[in-house]
């Protein structure tokens, strides 16, 4: 299924509008799921279900939102910040996110900011191209 990035963005927007009850214009590429759009953990599951249905792909939950494992492992977190090992794990597990800003201050409280609309579009694009 060859979808352009714009088409993917449009469908992801619709999914987020339905799942989170926000307006179209709030779902910008830079918008963070938790900070800007008010998503909670149960919403993440709802989003995963809807994305699977919309794009006909399978999304293992740890793939799209693996941060929970990262945060709880002491090898990856030290004094509330991600260690070098943690950052590598992040790069490995979440290639769809942009961690350049996060790297300068890898505060785990800021981990949620990595989950942007853009990250989801990247993830879906990757999955569709691999299919």
């Amino acid at each position, binding site marked *: 299924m060859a979808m352009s990035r714009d088409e993917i963005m449009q469908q992801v927007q619709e999914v987020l509008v339905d799942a989170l009850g926000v307006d179209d214009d709030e779902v910008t590429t830079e918008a963070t799921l938790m900070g800007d759009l008010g998503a909670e953990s*149960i919403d993440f599951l*709802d989003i995963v*279900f809807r994305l*699977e249905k919309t794009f006909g792909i399978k999304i293992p939950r740890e793939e799209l939102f693996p941060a929970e494992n990262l945060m709880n492992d002491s090898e990856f977190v030290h004094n509330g910040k991600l260690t070098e090992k943690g950052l590598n794990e992040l790069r490995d597990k979440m290639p769809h996110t942009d961690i350049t800003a996060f790297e300068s201050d890898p505060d785990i409280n800021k981990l949620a900011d990595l989950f942007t609309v853009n990250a989801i579009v990247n993830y879906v694009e990757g999955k569709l191209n691999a299919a």
Partner: protein
Amino acid sequence: MRWIWIDKFIEFQSGRRAVALKNVTLAEEHLHDHFPGFPVMPECLMIEAMAQTSGILVGEAKKFQEKVILAKIKKAVFFDYVKPGDTIKLDARIESIISEAASTSGKITCEDKLIAEIDLMFSHIDQNLAGKEFPQENFVFDTGTSVFESLLRDVLSAGAGAADSEQDR
């Protein structure tokens, strides 16, 4: 416990679909206030009835190994009123089910008239938040409740027969 908003299951396909009935009666006291002179079933109670139908479907799909909690009302749209004397049919289907959660879709009808469309999300508590305390009222199905068990008793034994005949067709 008297918080039961369905009366009978008429269909039960384990892991897939459940259809329940509820009779609405003026003996339900809240109807006298909702509204005076115009008794109609409150939409929130229709959501609760669907949550019980869907919740039991989801719980049974996992053989009641985990507690099922209503976590999110994804959609609840109402098209018409439900009045005393009506029998509503609640048709619930499992859309997705994984170890941590389940997503259901549902329709409420009254004699072929569409009354509501209600889509819900449930969380399986033992997989998520183990060890935290939750108030009893949040649980759709508590294995200690014999009334819910009696609802399922007839349909689960009959359901096996119905499923077989469906496959023969």
